[in-house]
C-alpha cells in the first residue's frame, strides 16, 4: 500500500514532466503538422539556459527559469522562421528530417560551447518533505503543481481567447485562417514560442532531479511523441492524460512487473492503445 502510494506519486512527478514536453510538441504537431524532433533539443537547451542563468549570472531559480522560457521560446521562433516556414508546403516527412538536422546541430553546438559533461542544477527546493507517509522532495511537489497550473493556463488560453482559437483554426485550415484575417505567420511563430517555452519549463523543473547534458532531450522526446499520438494529435487533454498514463505505466510497471522491462511495458501499452483506437484516445471522428 505504502509502496503503491509512493510509486503513484513518482509516476505523477514524471508524468507531469512528460505532459509538459508533450504539450509543446502536440501544439506544433497538431497545429502546424510538424513532427518537431528538435523539440528534444529545445528541452535540452532550456535546461542549459536555466542552469547558466543560475550559475554564471547568479539569478534565482525562478528568474532563471523565466528568462529561459523567453530565450528558448525565441529560439523556437527562429527555428520556425529559418527551417520550418520554408518547408511548409513540403510533405510532412521533410519536416521530420529537417528537425533531425536541427537536433543534431543544436546538440553539437551545445557540446561545442559547453562541453559534453553532465552538470547538475541546484534547486532552492531540495528539502525532503514527508506527507501522508510519502517521502518526497519539495522540488517534486513543485513539478506537479507547476505542471498542472501551466496546463490549466494553456487550456484556458486556447479555449477562451480568440488568439487561442486562431491557433486551433490554423491547425485545421491554414488558408481558411488567412481568409478570416488571421496572420498565419504570427500564429506559427507564437505557437513555436509557446512550444519552446513549455520545453524550457519542463527542463527547468526536471533538471534538479536529473542532470543537464547535451543528450538529455533523448530521454523525453521519443516518449513525448508517443504520448501525443495516443492522446490524439493536437489534443491538449490527450497530451496531458497520455503523459500521466506513461508516467504511471513506468513507475507501476517497474514496481509490480519488472524493472528491466518497464520501458517495454510502457511502449507495449501504447501500442495496445493504438491498436484498439487507431486514431488515439481523444480524437473525435470527423474525416
Amino acid at each position, binding site marked *: 500500500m505504502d509502496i503503491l502510494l509512493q510509486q503513484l506519486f513518482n509516476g505523477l512527478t514524471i508524468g507531469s514532466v512528460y505532459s509538459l514536453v508533450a504539450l509543446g510538441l502536440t501544439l506544433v504537431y497538431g497545429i502546424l503538422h510538424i513532427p518537431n524532433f528538435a523539440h528534444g533539443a529545445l528541452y535540452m537547451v532550456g535546461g542549459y539556459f536555466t542552469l547558466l542563468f543560475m550559475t554564471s549570472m547568479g539569478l534565482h531559480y525562478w528568474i532563471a527559469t523565466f528568462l529561459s522560457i523567453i530565450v528558448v521560446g525565441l529560439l523556437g521562433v527562429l527555428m520556425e522562421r529559418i527551417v520550418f516556414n520554408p518547408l511548409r508546403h513540403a510533405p510532412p516527412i521533410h519536416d521530420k528530417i529537417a528537425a533531425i538536422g536541427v537536433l543534431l546541430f543544436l546538440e553539437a553546438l551545445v557540446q561545442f560551447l559547453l562541453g559534453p559533461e553532465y552538470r547538475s542544477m541546484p534547486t532552492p527546493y531540495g528539502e525532503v518533505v514527508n506527507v501522508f507517509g510519502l517521502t518526497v522532495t519539495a522540488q517534486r511537489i513543485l513539478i506537479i503543481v507547476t505542471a498542472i497550473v501551466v496546463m490549466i493556463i494553456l487550456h484556458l488560453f486556447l479555449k477562451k481567447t480568440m488568439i487561442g482559437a486562431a491557433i486551433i*483554426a490554423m491547425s*485545421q*485550415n491554414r488558408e481558411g*485562417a488567412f*481568409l*478570416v484575417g488571421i*496572420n498565419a505567420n504570427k500564429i506559427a511563430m507564437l505557437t513555436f514560442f509557446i512550444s519552446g517555452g513549455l520545453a524550457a519549463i519542463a527542463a527547468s523543473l526536471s533538471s534538479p532531479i536529473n542532470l543537464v547534458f547535451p543528450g538529455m532531450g533523448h530521454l523525453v522526446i521519443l516518449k513525448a511523441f508517443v504520448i501525443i499520438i495516443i492522446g490524439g494529435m493536437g489534443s491538449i487533454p490527450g497530451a496531458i492524460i497520455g503523459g500521466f498514463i506513461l508516467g504511471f505505466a513506468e513507475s507501476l510497471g517497474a514496481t509490480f512487473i519488472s524493472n528491466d522491462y518497464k520501458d517495454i511495458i510502457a511502449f507495449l501499452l501504447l501500442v495496445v492503445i493504438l491498436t484498439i483506437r487507431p486514431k488515439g484516445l481523444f480524437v473525435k471522428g*470527423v474525416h
Partner: protein
Amino acid sequence: MLELTDVSVHYGGYLALRDINLSVKDGELVVLLGANGAGKSTIFRTISGLSKPSKGKIEFMNKNVNGLSPDRLVQSGIVQCAEGRKLFPQMTVKENLLLGGFSNRKDKERIKQNIEKSYELFPILREKKDNQAGSLSGGQQQMLAVGRALMANPKLILLDEPSIGLAPLIVEQVFEVIQQINRDGTTVLLAEQNANAALKIADRGYVIENGKIVLEGQSQELFDNDEIRKAYIGA
C-alpha cells in the same frame, strides 16, 4: 472602391491572368462570369492577397494594397468567401463564425450581433451551432462559409461561386441574401456559374475567358448578349 490595373498572375511558369483591368465602385454588385478555369478564382485569390500578382496594381479605397498580407486586407475590409469553403472542420459551427469575426475581435457586442444575423440568414446554422463544421452536408457548409465571411463586417465581400452545390430553394435564398447584404451597404464582387440568377441581381458584369477579360457591361447588356446567353445561361 476596388481598382485592378493591368494585373497579371503566374502559377509557376503558367500565366493564369493577363492584364486584368477591373473596377468595382462603392455600393455596387458586380458579377464575374466565365467558364471553368477561366481565372475567376485566381482574380479573387489575388485581390485577397493569397496569390501575388507578377505585374500590375491593385488599389482599394484609393490605397495601393498590392502585396499586403491576407490578414491586413481583411482588416482593411476585403473579405472573401472562397471556393472550397475553407472551413475549420473540427471546430463547431459557432466557433467558425466567431473566428470569422477575428479581425474585430475586440468588439464583443458586434460579434454577438453578427452571429445572430448569420443565424437569421441561415436558420440551419443555429440548429447545428454545436456541431463540427466537417460533419455538415455540402450545402450547409456553403452557408456557413458565407456566414463566416459576413462576420468580419466587410466593406467589400468577394463571393466565389456561393451557390455551388446548393438546393434550388437555398440558391434563391442565397441570392436574396446577397442582394440584402448589398443593399445594407456592402460592396459585392460575385463569381458565378449561375449567370441567370447572378445577372438578375448584379449592376454590372465582366466576362472572363482564358485569363483575360473579354467583355464588360451593364447586367442587362450582358443578359441580352446572345453569345453570353448561349455560353453561360443555357438555352
